[in-house]
């Protein structure tokens, strides 16, 4: 849908931004740190850039939209970059920066937003959870022994899936209210023998099954609860 012109290299596309006030569109990140928001007309192919968000100074690695029910003021979109900085945005007439989460020295390779919780996966194998509205760190998980490639959230249950180069895929459970229960707990670990996991996705909105892809693998492995 997006054709790159000479200087802009597109890394990621966020596929659906929450439809608020009908003033939204897909967002794409660039290697220079810009986040471009597009306007897709209801009919025709006249796609235009409606906004350019300039908060990141490093290449954008991932963009995620709120997949659950955001508490008030918690933001609709989060973008992550190569240095590890995260930006939380609210969409509306225009995009507004809600909070900026500073890097801690590691590239953020993958990010998800659910019920006002930002789940970020890093190149050093750590998963961190932040409150989207305030940017506060709520949990630090030493999840993987290598670069995390993929994160996914099952929106109906808050299950979190992480896949990394260490061959492991983990299933976690995010709590709906970080102040009452444990904000994150470990549910299940799966080792995909001799495979560097490159992609991992839940196959249903409750998170009862997930699919995994890996380097040099021509198959997609699907796991389901018995």
């Amino acid at each position: 849908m997006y054709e790159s012109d000479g200087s802009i290299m597109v890394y990621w596309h966020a596929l659906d931004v929450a439809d608020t006030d009908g003033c939204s569109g897909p967002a794409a990140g660039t290697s220079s740190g810009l986040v471009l928001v597009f306007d897709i007309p209801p009919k025709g192919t006249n796609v235009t850039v409606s906004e350019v968000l300039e908060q990141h100074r490093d290449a954008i690695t991932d963009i995620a939209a709120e997949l659950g029910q955001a508490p008030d003021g918690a933001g609709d979109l989060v973008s992550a970059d190569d240095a590890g900085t995260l930006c939380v945005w609210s969409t509306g007439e225009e995009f507004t920066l809600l909070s900026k989460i500073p890097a801690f020295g590691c590239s953020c390779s993958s990010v998800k937003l659910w019920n006002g919780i930002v789940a970020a996966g890093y190149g050093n194998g750590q998963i961190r959870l932040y409150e989207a509205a305030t940017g506060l760190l709520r949990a630090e998980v030493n999840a993987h022994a290598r670069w995390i490639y993929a994160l996914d959230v099952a929106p109906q249950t808050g299950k979190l899936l992480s896949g990394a180069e260490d061959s492991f895929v983990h299933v976690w459970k995010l709590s709906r209210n970080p102040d009452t229960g444990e904000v994150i707990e470990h549910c299940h670990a799966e080792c995909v023998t001799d495979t560097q996991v490159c992609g991992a996705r839940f196959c249903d909105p409750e998170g009862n099954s997930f699919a995994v892809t890996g380097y040099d693998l021509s198959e997609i492995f699907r796991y389901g609860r018995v």
Partner: protein
Amino acid sequence: MSARALPLLFLNLGGEMLYILDQRLRAQSIPGEKARKDEWTDVDRKRVMNDIITTMFNKKFMEELFKPQELYSKKALRTVYDRLAHASIMRLNQASMDKLYDLMTMAFKYQVLLCPRPKDILLVTFNHLDAIKDFIRDAPGILNQVDETFRQLIETYSCLSAGEFQLIRQTLLIFFQDMHIRVSIFLKDKVQNSNGRFVLPISGPVPWGTEVPGLIRMFNHNGDEVKRTEFTTSGNYVAPQREGSFDLYGDRVLKLGTNMYSVSRPVETHMTGSSKNLASHAKENIVPNPLAKEELNFLARLLGGLEIKKPGGSETGFRLNLFTTDEEEEHAALTRPEELSYKVINIEATQ
């Protein structure tokens, strides 16, 4: 994809090539003066290594190499190594050259795959360069050239971010995708499975900068840690000891990229058993390569800077065999599966 992967690809593959040639030359050489004209001596071996290394680190060649550019096809790269291997009086038959290239590529694929951090690919490169410097320690002129390249590597790559290194690593992994040639030394060391795929260990030290998996820490609004829990997996990781050095000299710590060949362990490769990928390889040969013209231009520029020695009047080229006997070499040439043939491009690029 990254435009900075080519120097790393070239230097590491070149390093592996030198390890293998050195091992074979030592295995086939005789001490002292030669009795017959076609025998190798230590003096011949050192000369071959010096010639190849001099050619590899040629200034103009390196300048072309370090320009930001895409990785080219396997065919184009293979042609460069063909030329490089023949930069001295040594000669290799097609079958031996094929085997040499198979070993080089599988070894480097393994090293890239197992790099703990993306940045460690630079340490692997430094390991190769350290070994190359050791090969030519008696020739200060060539040593200078290698140090120059070392400095250029440090200048080009030291300030890259983790994400940029990961992109370089992914670019290299895509280049090596679907290659599953089985190498006897890897099979014996249980580093490769019988289906050609590498073993990924789930134990040992974690990369520098990574914590051993297992701990979950939770914080309240004031930033105080309020709870800790742990989870277990089948992995068995420990903390790393120290970080390798990225300086011109230093302990690299990482073993990937060091010489794993020794004279007493001959190395074989196995072609059969890769049938799953037959279809994709066959397709690759039929579809016309849109980059063909670019590749030829690239090769002409690159090879234009390579001085090729042709054996002079009284000297005959020495043939090196990567196999144990001539009959084995012939047999390998006849039985190499079609889809694994490299179809070398012949280019006359003299200036």
